[in-house]
């Protein structure tokens, strides 16, 4: 007991719980981060955050990512997983599209590339004058995209950023869902087909309920990633984008702590973000319970 649970738990207390508590305490001080003085200010930092327009913008953007990114990734990767598992020819036994193995490997590639590299690659793709995207668009005659700044226009910066994060994760979750769907008894799909169910019906009535536990876990992971998203945002738009339209909380924490020397305030932002994360996880589990999802550790 002591060796198997006590030691890891002690390690956990020292390395995880203690820093949490420490950071929470700092959030109640006006610590600059660069001196030993940590004047206690109570909830002053939180009061400031409530009236800090820039922080609220960042929080709004983080929430946008939280709502949009996991939903898009889940829908896209589930659709692709269905195609690869039972979306193939209707002749013979239930099977995926031809070339499934190839698609699985290829779509997994982005997950293998480090996030910062993905960010840099896409920053080049979006480059207004030399980028691949505008090159293709103007090449097919869409002249209004000449020098169009995808990451520099208020209307497109967030969407362009979301597209990159989705691109990076769809392949991974697709592979995950393929594995889960393959755990469902194939006879269920065959029986459904004999009863006249099409691909969409099979996906929604058999595959989705069958892997609901995996989807829930995947949703939580993706949501946490969307709330962080620091590396992608820092590579694509280090200044927070046009009119701060892609500024997220983690970027704001970084600049508040290190370039503005307000660690106490930055810690308060961290606490707010952690609370948002916990609320999100609670909400996902709550909704899943309402929908009757069981067993979540399959992912």
């Amino acid at each position, binding site marked *: 007991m002591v060796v198997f649970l006590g030691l890891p738990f002690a390690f956990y207390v020292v390395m*995880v719980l203690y820093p949490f508590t420490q950071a929470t305490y700092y959030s109640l001080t006006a610590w600059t981060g660069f001196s030993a003085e940590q004047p206690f200010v109570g909830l002053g930092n939180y009061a400031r955050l409530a009236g800090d327009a820039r922080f609220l913008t960042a929080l709004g953007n983080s929430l946008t990512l939280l709502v949009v990114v996991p939903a898009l990734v889940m829908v896209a990767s589930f659709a692709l997983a269905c195609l690869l598992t039972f979306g193939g020819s209707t002749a013979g036994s239930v099977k995926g599209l031809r070339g499934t193995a190839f698609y699985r490997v290829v779509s997994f590639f982005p997950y293998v590339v480090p996030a910062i590299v993905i960010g840099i690659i896409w920053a080049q793709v979006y*480059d*207004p004058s030399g980028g691949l995207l505008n090159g293709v668009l103007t090449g097919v005659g869409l002249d209004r995209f000449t020098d169009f700044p995808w990451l520099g226009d208020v209307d497109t910066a967030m969407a362009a950023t979301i597209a990159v994060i989705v691109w990076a994760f769809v392949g991974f979750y697709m592979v995950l869902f393929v594995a889960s769907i393959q755990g469902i008894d194939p006879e269920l799909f065959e029986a459904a087909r004999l009863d006249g169910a099409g691909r969409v019906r099979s996906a929604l009535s058999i595959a989705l309920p069958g892997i609901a536990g995996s989807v829930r876990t995947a949703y939580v992971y993706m949501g946490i990633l969307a709330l962080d998203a620091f590396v992608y945002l820092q590579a694509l738009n280090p200044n927070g984008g046009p009119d701060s339209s892609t500024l997220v909380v*983690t970027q704001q*924490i970084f600049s508040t702590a290190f370039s503005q020397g307000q660690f106490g305030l930055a810690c308060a932002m961290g606490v707010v973000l952690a609370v948002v994360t916990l609320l999100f996880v609670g909400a996902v589990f709550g909704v899943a319970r309402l929908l009757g999802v069981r067993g979540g550790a399959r992912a």
Partner: protein
Amino acid sequence: MSPLESSRTPLQRRAFLKAVTAGAVVTPFGLSLASCAASGSGPDTGGGGGGGATGEVSDANPFGVAAGTTVEAVVFDGGYGTDYASFAAAIVQEQLDDVTVDVVGSTQIAQQMQPRFVGGTPPDLLDNNGANAIGLSTIAAQLEDLTEVVQAPNTEGTTIADTLYPNVLGVGMYDGKLAALNYVLTVYALWYSESLFEENGWTAPQTWDEALALGAAAQEQGKYLFTWGREAASYYLTMALDSAIKEGGDDVRLQMANLQPDAWSGEAITGVLAAMEQVVSRGYMRPGGAGTQFTQAQAQWSQAQEALLYPSGSWIENEMADATAEGFQMTGAPTPTVTSGSALPYAAINNTPNEPFVVPSQGQNPAGGKEVLRVMLSPETATEFARTKLASTIVAGTIPDDAFGSSALAAQVAMLDAAGTDTFNYNFVQTYGMTQEVNGLWNSFLSGDSDAATLAQGMQAMFDRIREDDSVVKVEVS
């Protein structure tokens, strides 16, 4: 609890397991929190020297560096590298018995130095520069007054203060003490290709009206007047401020640097912004800058020559050395004024020096840090720096007439000579960590998404917010 007890109380064990599982679930969510936590050892355990041992004071050792001590210098490893500091370190080691100088390069100054400042073990000399520099007002109270250094004789016996360019120390003043010594002289100007201008019979614009006329001429040839990159939109703030300070005089600089409530509604800055708004609305800015990485945007000017002018500091030649067209002949001209009757002459120039070196008071060997600085400000190291970096330190007279064959460096010296004492500087954008927000506002303005009034409002709102924020340490500029 002992193994025996636990085996008798399965319920407890289950509760324990539950707690551990719950903890494991929380782990990833806490990253944002953990990133805030400090590794600092707190106020009491700091082993700061607070002066350290002192040696005998002499002309060759004016700060009394003790024999047998070590000096740690942390130098920003950016465009200028760290070898110039090592060069000075070697001289110090040669001149003082048994003193060792360790030069360490870093590009993560704030991240690496933060726990050391908290723990009371900062280095003896720190070059606080780069994207991850510490906001100087945050640590100003913990720094030595470097007046002692500039009043000391250099290695050849001349007082250092007498060897410097005029107005180069002001930006290092914090609450009446010289907290930072900015080592590298930087000239902020409009840079262009001399050969291209000669070929077309163009001249650098001296007023904004001339700039607009030049923009029209550029447009005829399918070129643009300016280009910009999203991370460097703030260069246009510098250009606007320089132009406004020249137009309205030193009061404008003081209003801006002290974040005054009406700074952005003054006549001079309003005139400049109105002219720049014309530049934008007439299509003289190369489109797409808000989404372009800044060095790529700079290459549109230096390599592709799609834009005529680029406002920047004099590091631009070095920065774009590998992306400059053959025969470009980079040269610079002062920022235009609004009218020909400006308060400061057209030749007036922003010479805010860069690479702020500081000596933390809590270091083990502050005297050693000052000694390294003193040697850096002596002719040998300053000349070596100019020769190898093609840039001038704040020490005057280290650039020969041929400027080592660099047209941009020659232009820099010529502009400084022409300006004489009409030089000015400010660095409130760095002091208050405004760059990120400034870039946001200026990207919108330069793309034409907002106008001069919106920009001025946004800048003023930022000024007001920082000025009214008691938790931000203010630096009174005079």
